[in-house]
């Protein structure tokens, strides 16, 4: 029965989204109050019915209703409850329903908040309606999660064990809130182009959505990176895998967008550029969806053989991006910004931020798509791995981080870079000291390490200097904290990346019980391996005694798990962190009466994710300040323009 309710709810949602699209776009005209009312109420209706469909699917997973094919293929009665629920989006069909659910939530909020005026909201809802319509059509015709099996099987096939992890329970919804959240700024931009109201009020209306999406995307990527680190068993945190790149590209553009929108809100500058970034950000979300959902990544040829889903998404993508860009090309030239500013000004730093971040996004885009294109066109196969990005992406970020501290210190329109440099002198000093210390103390002596730490110290110290120089810390606006936290976060992440990359110690030994191996000042002793029974797996669990300076300081338990239902094995790493350094153990196979043990000591590894959390906190501070300042009437802003 739940299957039928869900199916019906999806069909009704499809109909509502069509009405919402038409009514919303018609509501962009001046005297169309009725259309606008229809658009708002259908947005709420869409949310209700998509929620109903999503709820039915969760219910089917929780009750292990194997008459539904999606549940049969991705669940199992023995799975713990939390993984039955997260299994809903651990597969193609369910994750597409989650996608539309998040889209519907954003549309509901847009309809409820009515930011930026009725006409703008209505047109934006119209665009949201079009997107929802396309995705619901895609779900119903190529990815229906409610298809039935007759007769229903007695037991399900289970969920990929690597996905049965608490970090991963949160990661996909977080990422989707980010990905799909960019649809709101996309829709507002398209709406601004349609109504011709691309003014400061529009930028103010779209900004909370941009910020919220950016925060979620930041946390989603951070969570994904952390998950990969502790689950995959070899201590890496970023692999430049196409699927990771698919999330990184929208993040880079969204970061550029947040900065460019600052200027647009403040002085109306860079209006058309902000519009374009909003369109590009969500376009990259769509491209990411295409890359991951079409199967084109695993093989160009697999895609060509079973193209139904891929072609549908590709069609959707080309239509959405193409029409948004066409709209932009048609309407944007009418937007005269004509602002005046000097070379040394906040505007200039924002433009440099934008060009560097866009070039970084373009680099990831080229590096991700080039091998696919080359294979499709010539049959030539190449790999684009970390060394490529180290040579192309990293230099852009070095320049970006060098410039970051100047942004908050330069005034609008006309700043004084000499004074900014004078104020930032203590940060320069800290950076120099960091470089010298790192070069002198850490072995091997490395100029690259010294440079990386100087850069990190420069951004972090400059963020602190910036706050202190602004005066009474309690009286500062939230925006000051926002930029300081986010910029310091960038430095913290850089420290983490530099620390683990330069100084990670690795050990790989075959240990018999009682034998020891040394690693970076620790001694590890294998005391034994026992079999342990989990809820839906069996594990070999090692007892590893950790010694430091001859003193036992801990016992760690890396595991190898075997999931019989899924017929797969995973490594469950053991990590002992001091907050500054990780001791990381992964258990390998049994061989010749011993066990293979992989051990890593990764200095500063936790900083990688601390930095991500700092950036997200910066976003939250900005969002908080924004929502509190909402009381300022729009007319006042229009007058200021």
């Amino acid at each position, binding site marked *: 029965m739940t299957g039928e309710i869900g199916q019906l709810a999806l069909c009704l949602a499809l109909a509502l989204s069509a009405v919402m699209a038409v009514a919303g776009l018609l509501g962009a005209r001046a005297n169309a109050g009725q259309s606008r009312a229809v658009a708002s109420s259908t947005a709420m209706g869409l949310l209700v019915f998509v929620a109903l469909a999503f709820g039915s699917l969760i219910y089917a997973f929780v009750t292990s209703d194997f008459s539904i094919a999606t549940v049969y293929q991705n669940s199992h009665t023995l799975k713990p409850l939390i993984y039955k629920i997260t299994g809903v989006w651990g*597969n193609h069909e369910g*994750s597409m329903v989650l996608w539309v659910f998040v889209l519907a939530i954003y549309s509901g909020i847009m309809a409820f908040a009515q930011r930026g005026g009725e006409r703008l909201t209505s047109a934006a809802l119209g665009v949201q309606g079009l997107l929802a319509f396309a995705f619901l059509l895609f779900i119903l015709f190529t990815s229906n999660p409610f298809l039935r099996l007759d007769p229903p099987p007695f037991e399900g096939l289970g969920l*990929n*064990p*690597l996905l049965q992890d608490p970090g991963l329970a949160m990661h*996909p919804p977080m990422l989707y809130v980010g990905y799909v959240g960019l649809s709101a700024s996309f829709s507002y931009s398209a709406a601004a182009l349609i109504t011709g109201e691309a003014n400061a009020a529009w930028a103010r209306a779209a900004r909370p959505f941009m910020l919220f999406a950016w925060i979620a995307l930041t946390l*989603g*990527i951070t969570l*994904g990176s952390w998950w990969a680190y502790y689950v*995959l*068993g*070899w201590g*890496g945190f970023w692999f*430049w*895998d196409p*699927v*990771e790149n698919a*999330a990184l590209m929208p993040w880079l553009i969204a970061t550029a967008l947040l900065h460019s929108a600052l200027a647009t809100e403040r002085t109306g500058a860079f209006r058309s550029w902000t519009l374009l970034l909003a369109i590009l950000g969500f376009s990259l979300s769509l491209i990411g969806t295409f890359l*991951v*959902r079409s199967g084109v*990544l*695993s093989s160009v040829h697999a895609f060509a053989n079973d193209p139904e889903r891929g072609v549908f998404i590709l069609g959707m993508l080309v239509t959405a991006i193409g029409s948004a860009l066409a709209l932009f090309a048609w309407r944007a030239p009418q937007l005269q910004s004509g*602002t005046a*500013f*000097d*070379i040394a000004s906040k*505007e200039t730093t924002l*433009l*440099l931020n*934008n060009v560097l971040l866009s*070039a970084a996004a*373009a*680099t990831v885009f*080229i590096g991700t798509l*080039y091998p696919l294109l*080359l294979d499709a066109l*010539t049959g*030539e*196969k*190449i*790999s*684009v*791995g*970390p*060394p*490529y990005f180290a040579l*192309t992406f990293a230099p*852009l970020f070095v320049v970006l981080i060098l410039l970051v501290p100047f942004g908050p210190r330069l005034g609008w*329109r006309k700043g004084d870079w000499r004074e900014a440099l004078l104020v930032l002198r203590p940060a320069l000093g800290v950076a120099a000291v960091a470089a010298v210390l790192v070069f002198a103390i850490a072995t091997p002596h490395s100029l690259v390490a010294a440079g990386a730490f100087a850069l990190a110290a420069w951004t972090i110290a400059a963020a602190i200097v910036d706050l202190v120089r602004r005066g009474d810390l309690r009286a500062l606006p939230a925006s000051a904290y926002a930029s300081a936290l986010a910029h310091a976060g960038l430095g913290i992440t850089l420290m983490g990346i530099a620390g683990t990359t330069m100084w990670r110690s690795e050990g790989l030994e*075959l240990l018999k019980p009682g034998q020891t191996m040394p690693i970076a000042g620790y001694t590890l002793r294998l005391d034994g391996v026992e079999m342990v029974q989990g809820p839906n797996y069996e594990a070999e669990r090692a007892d590893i005694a950790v010694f430091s300076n001859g003193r036992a300081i801990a016992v760690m338990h890396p595991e190898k798990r075997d999931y019989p239902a899924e*017929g*797969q*094995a*995973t*490594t469950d790493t053991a990590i002992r962190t001091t907050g500054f350094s990780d001791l990381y153990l992964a258990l*390998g*196979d049994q*061989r010749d009466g011993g066990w*293979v043990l*992989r051990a890593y000591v990764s200095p500063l590894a936790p900083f990688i994710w601390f930095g991500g959390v700092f950036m997200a906190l910066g976003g939250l501070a900005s969002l908080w300040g924004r929502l509190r300042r909402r009381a300022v009437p729009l007319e006042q802003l229009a007058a200021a323009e």
Partner: protein
Amino acid sequence: MRRLLLAILLSLVSAMAFADTGPDKLADPALEARAVALQKQLRCLVCQGQSLDESNAPLAADLRRLIRARIAAGDSDEQVEHYLVARYGDFILMKPPLEPLTYLLWFGPLGVLLIGGAAVALVIARARMRLDPGDR
């Protein structure tokens, strides 16, 4: 980022289900360091995005042994790489070679940066002209 996962997963899962063949180190630490450095630059052919250094797949273990065998036989790093490229193609290199087919890959980012930089310079120059003469 179910997506992120799926791709990594599909590959890893297959890799993890197989045996970790464990250490087969060269006795000479200098040679072993060369082998490790090499296997970080080479790609596991059956996984997605992992280097030979990280992969647990049997083929990766075979190739790690092969690299050590060639190094022990006196091959230089380049010779080992050439040998592997001759057998498996450019696909095995994490760093794609610079050749006419990859010019766009290698110089594309620079092109984007130059075009973007030129556009920004133009915008700044025009914005500066609009300032009152006293402010310039």
